[in-house]
Structure formats: C-alpha cells, structure tokens
C-alpha cells in the first residue's frame, strides 16, 4: 500500500537505473544513514563501540571485499584472514615508520599494499579454478601468517611478536589507542565503510563489474565476447584485496589496537568471512552487510540474553549459542540458498503487493 512504484515517475535513464528505484526505499536508506551518522555517535558507549558496531563495520568491509572476488567474479578465496593480516601489518609499519602520516591515508595505503599482494596471489587464478584455486588461496593464508610470525622486522622486533597501534589523531581527536572516544572510532569506521560501499556498488554495476560477472557466469563465453580474463580476474583480486586490507587495517588500528597474527588473522577468520558472504548473499552489497550482521551480532545477542537475562552458566550458554547459530545458518540456507539478500528482496517484492496480492 505504501511501498510501491506507482506514482513514482522516472523521466531519465539515470533515475531509472538508480540503486533504490522506490521512493520509500530512498527515504528509509537516507534516514538510516542519517541516524547512523548523526544520532548514534551521541548514544554510543564503549561496549556498543568495541563489541557491536565497530566489529560489525569491520567485518562488513571484509565481507564486501570477499564478495567482490567470490560473489561477483566467482573466484573462491580462503585467504581473507591472511590478506587482513597484510593490511594490519602494512598499517603498523606505515604508522611506526611515518608517525606524522594521517591515519586515513595509512588505512588506504594499507589497502593498496594488500591489493598488490592480492594480485600476486591471484596469478594462479589464471590457470586454476574452483576447488583448486581455493587450495591455492589457502596456501596464501598459511604463508602470510607464517611470514608475520617468522620475520621480526614486521613486528619491529617486539618481545611478544605483537603489534600495537600507537595513538593517532584526526582533527585533533584521538582515533586509535586507548584514549580514543568511542564515537570517534565509530564515525571513522562508518565513514570509511560508507564511502567504500558506495564505490563498490558503483564498481559492480559498471563496466568492470559486468566483466567480473561475465567471468563468473562462464569464462569461455566471456572471453569470446571480448572480456580479458587476465584483466578481469586480476582486477577482481586487486579490488577485493584492497577492501580486505582496509578491513584488516581497521581491525588492528581502530578496533583492537594490538594483535598477534595467529589468533587475529588465522584460518578461522577466512572461514568466517566466507560464511558471511555465502549466508548474506553472493554477489550482493546488501548481502555483505547482512551476513556480517548475522555472524557478528547474533552471538553477542544470544550471549546477552542467555547469560545476562536468564543467568545461565556461561559454558552452557556458549554451547547453546554455538548450536543456535549453526542451526540458524543451516535453516537460512535451506529456506533460501541465495542468502539473506535474496530473502530481503523477496520480502520487498511481496511488500509491493501487500495487502492486496491479487
């Protein structure tokens, strides 16, 4: 009744091709963004920042990156954790080598470094596909973590092998380090994710994105119609790694402030990102966010309900939480194999007809 196209006339191609063709969608989207930028910073506290919002944003970024590679270009990657580590260590080396460098530049440059590493490990994708490529990226994961453990130069020869982010400011306000106010780190994270999600959305519906999708759907056919696999695949690896690298840099600088490679960027994290992408929806920007929300926020919610409200023993709650999240993943994949994004789309289509479907 309220959610419909009727009366929403488009007079140009530009208007016809926009991301949110329905007016209510646009209003809701901008309302949500305004809320995130203008209201949340006044309400946020340490807990919401460090345990809920920043983790969600950082993982959204990582899922976005992996979705470009796996969802749009069809190249399965198990190296996300390793590439996040590259981003984090690049950020650390840049921060300590150039103390005056602006933190935003550091984060973007770390993405650039990761993009180069990603292209390097993307080279095998020109020859191998599917499971074999997954194994090749798995090698990247283990190799990169090994490098960051092995060579002390990467962690500036610290005794524990940990890297610690020194304090950096933006407009005179600390955004990294322990004294950074929660709203500052949150806003910086949100701005970065907002800008790059915007870029990703427009990349994927432009020429580059179409070449990726052509490769994904059938690489031989794509080659015949003039898409160069070398360019398409390597650009997908570069852009994807860029995003994942930024996620890693944010993970280290804005979220934790100190990390060690094996735990923070292990194979578990690669799987986590892959689950987010599959669960959220392959080849969907919204899906990256939905998947990240599902896997980051749900465990925290369950924990707070079971331990905080019901007062269950913590070990029982943890076990139940693992089972619940696992069960829900299976449930959603059975109900909708194309992920939460598709579920959302169906809901919206139904809503257009509601309440008179005939």
């Amino acid at each position: 009744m309220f959610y419909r196209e009727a009366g929403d006339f488009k007079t140009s191609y530009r208007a016809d091709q926009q991301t949110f063709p329905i007016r209510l969608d646009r209003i809701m989207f901008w309302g949500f963004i305004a809320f995130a930028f203008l209201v949340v910073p006044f309400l946020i506290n340490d807990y919401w920042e460090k345990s809920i919002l920043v983790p969600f944003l950082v993982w959204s970024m990582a899922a976005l990156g992996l979705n470009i590679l796996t969802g749009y270009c069809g190249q399965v990657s198990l190296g996300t954790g390793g590439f996040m580590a590259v981003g984090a260590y690049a950020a650390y080396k840049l921060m300590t080598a150039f103390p005056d460098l602006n933190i935003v530049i550091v984060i973007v440059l770390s993405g650039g470094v990761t993009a180069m590493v990603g292209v390097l490990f993307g080279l095998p994708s020109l020859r191998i596909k599917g499971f074999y490529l997954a194994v090749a990226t798995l090698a990247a994961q283990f190799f990169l973590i090994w490098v960051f453990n092995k060579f002390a130069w990467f962690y500036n020869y610290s005794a524990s092998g940990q890297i610690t982010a020194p304090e950096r400011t933006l407009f005179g306000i600390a955004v990294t380090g322990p004294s950074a106010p929660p709203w500052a780190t949150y806003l910086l994270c949100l701005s970065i994710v907002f800008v790059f999600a915007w870029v990703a959305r427009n990349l994927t519906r432009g020429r580059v994105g179409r070449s990726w999708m052509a490769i994904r759907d059938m690489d031989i056919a794509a080659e015949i119609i003039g898409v160069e696999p070398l360019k398409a695949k390597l650009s997908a690896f570069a852009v994807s790694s860029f995003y994942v690298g930024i996620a890693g840099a944010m993970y280290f600088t804005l979220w934790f402030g100190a990390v060690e490679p094996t735990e923070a960027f292990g194979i578990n994290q690669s799987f986590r990102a892959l689950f987010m992408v599959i669960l959220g929806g392959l080849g969907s920007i919204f899906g990256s966010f939905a998947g990240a929300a599902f896997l980051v926020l749900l465990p925290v919610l369950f924990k707070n309900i079971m331990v905080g409200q019901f007062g269950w023993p913590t070990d029982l709650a943890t076990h139940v939480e693992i089972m619940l999240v696992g069960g829900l993943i299976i449930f959603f994949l059975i109900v909708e194999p194309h992920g939460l994004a598709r579920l959302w789309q169906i809901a919206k289509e139904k809503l257009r007809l509601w309440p008179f479907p005939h």
Partner: protein
Amino acid sequence: MKLARIATVAAAALMMGAAPALAELVFPSLSYRTGPYAPNGIPFADGYADYFTLVNERDGGVEGVKINMIECETGYNTEKGVECYESTKGEGALMYQPLSTGITYQLIPKATADGIPIHSMGYGRTSAANGKVFSNVFNYPGTYWDAASIIVKHILDQEGGDLKGKKIALVYHNSAYGKEPIRTLEELAKKHGFELSLLPVDHPGQEQKSTWLQIRRDRPDYVTMWGWGVMNQVAIKEAANIRYPMDHFIGVWWSASENDVLPAGEAADGYKAITFHAVGSDFPIYDDLKKHVYDAGKAAGAGDQHGTVLYNRGMVAAMWAVEAARKAMEIHGTKELTPAMMRDGMEALDVDEARLAELGLPDFTVPVKVSCESHGGPGLGAIQQWDAKAKKWSLITGYIEADRAVVDPLIMEDSMAFAKENNIEMRCGS
C-alpha cells in the same frame, strides 16, 4: 505461556538491575569452560569462584562487603575477551584477571586508561613487573622470565653447574604467551653457553608430529615447554611416543596440571614443571570449603577439580584479590571500593607466611609483598614432578630464586621501551 515466562524473567532481571546498589565487590572472572583450552580453564575458574563463595558464606564477605563475581566466557579468544571486558566494566568491576596473555596485552592500555587494575598472575606482559611504568598492571608472584631462569637454574643443578655445549629446546604456543620467554632464554643461552632451539606450535596445538620428529632428530638435552590447553596433553603424549626422557622435559607453571599429564598415562611419569604454590587438598582451608561450599551445594562447575593444581591456583588468585581488597579498605577507610582504591590495595599487598597460616593456607604459596616499584612479586618457583603411579605431583625442590641479574635488566629495557613509545612518565618518585 512460554512468552509470558520469558517476559517475567526479563522483568525480574530488570528489577534486579534497578534495585538500589548495595556496596559490593565486583570481581569479573574471564573464564573459559569451552574450547581447546577448557581442560585448564575449568579448574582455575572453579577454584576462583569457590574461594569467593567461601569468603561470602563463611565471613559474610570481605569485612562485611559481599563479593559479586561475574563470570564471562572468553574461550581464550581475544575478541571475546574484549567483549567480556567491555560488558563487565560497566558493572563496577574492581579488577580483572584475564587468564590469557593475549587478552592481557589487549587490556593493558584499555584498563590503564579506564583506571582499572589488572592482575595477570604469572602470565601476561613480563615487563609489567616494573611498577614505575605500568601503574595498573600487576603480575605477582612471578613472571615468565623468572620462570625461564628458574628452569635453567634447575637444569644447571642437574648438570652439575655446567651447560656448555648442551642443547635446550623450547616448545611454545605460537602466540604472545609462548613467545614471552624467548628473550630471556636467549640471554641465558649466551650466559651459560647452551644452544637454544625454538619450536613453535600453532593454536590450538593438536598437531605436533613434526615438532617432536625434530626433537627426536636433534636430541636436545632438555626440553622446556610454554604450552596451554590441549597443547600440553598432546606434547606430553608425543614426548612419550618418541621416548624422550621425561625428567628432562620441564614445563612452565601453565603446563603443570593433572589434566595435562593424565592422558599420557604411565608414560608421563617423571615429567617436571615449575610452580609457585602447593598442590593437594591437605590444607585447613579445605575443611571450611567442605563445610560452607561443597556440602552446601554451592561449588562451582562439576565440583570434581578440588585439590588439583589449577584449582588451587584459581584459589590463590582469588585469595590475593580478597587480601588486596581488604588492604584497600584499610588504606582508604571505606567499604565502598573504587577501582582506583583497589589498585592502591594491590600495590600495598603484603601476604606473608603468618597471614597465609591465618587464612588456612600454611606454606601454600610464596609470601608476596608488592611495592610501587615492583609489581612482579618475589619471583620464586619450585620444581614439581609427576608420579604417574600415585597420580600425584610432588615438589622436588624448595623455592628457587630467579636469576635477577639477567631478568631485571631485561624488564627494565622492555618497560622503558614501552614507556617511551607511549609517553609514560615514571611513577614512584624517581
């Protein structure tokens, strides 16, 4: 019906939250009862909880103020640990014992900024022993570097005081925890002329075949281990498989529990580890525990860990926390403690042998006296050995002092580097 019940529970929980706050001592317990580190996390968490329950039940709290222990499951995972820290911080937490070196490293800057003390008892960042730099971090009664030097001292004893040309291998958990002793061991290798080889084991530590193959090939004279959780059990089993002489295999105090040696059965006989407290339930406090906690059905967990190494360690951690709170009340003359007061109490902590005996723990652990300069405690450790037939640990040495000549300059160097990096001013009037 179900919804109604959930709503009632939720309402009740909200009501409880809204009730006027009575003075209480909030000690969060960042425990791990799940995952690959649970075999070690459970006994510690049980001991920690039971001691607080005992103080509440027997004495009605610390000087009449009840202890409220909030348990939060970390799974030995830093991400969850930070979540636990942030979620319990708001409840008025007085002190944290993260029981994980990784989480400790994570919390040192945060807790210092928030003014909450951390007690990383025999783990965490070794150089936090320098109280001049680390105002809010305590790691009494000893550090990893103390442990490393005590182990080497014990080996020296075994070898008649000469280690020239000997080979010592370190099998370590490939994390901040396992890497801690490397710097000291390297220094000691230089001093005593032994050869050190480093063998990392990745989380969670179930896969150690290649590590022990390497040991079998190199035949080091001694193997030391910095392991935790499942890694300990696997290492001891693998050592037994290659028939490595167990009395030449020495673990740190976190590789020293019953749960680590029992899976290897008879083959673990003779395995050694360092410790800073006694084992067993042969102490007067256990009578009180039985009367007020176990028989009253208030024991934490499954109640099958009493008297084990890590249960006792959890208890000793809780005991120092309680004594520090008592000290803080004495100093500030109030029963409503803030984290800052708790910190002062920890810095003035003095639990000597007489006090231990009063608490029903005679000769249970080393006497601890903390000062503004030294947060690291006495740095004493004894060597215990496993008797697989009797299924018992027994102390085979007295408490040995760490090699201060090696450890102290290293602590100074590392803490000064930290101070410089973070622009920290020296405390304690120097």
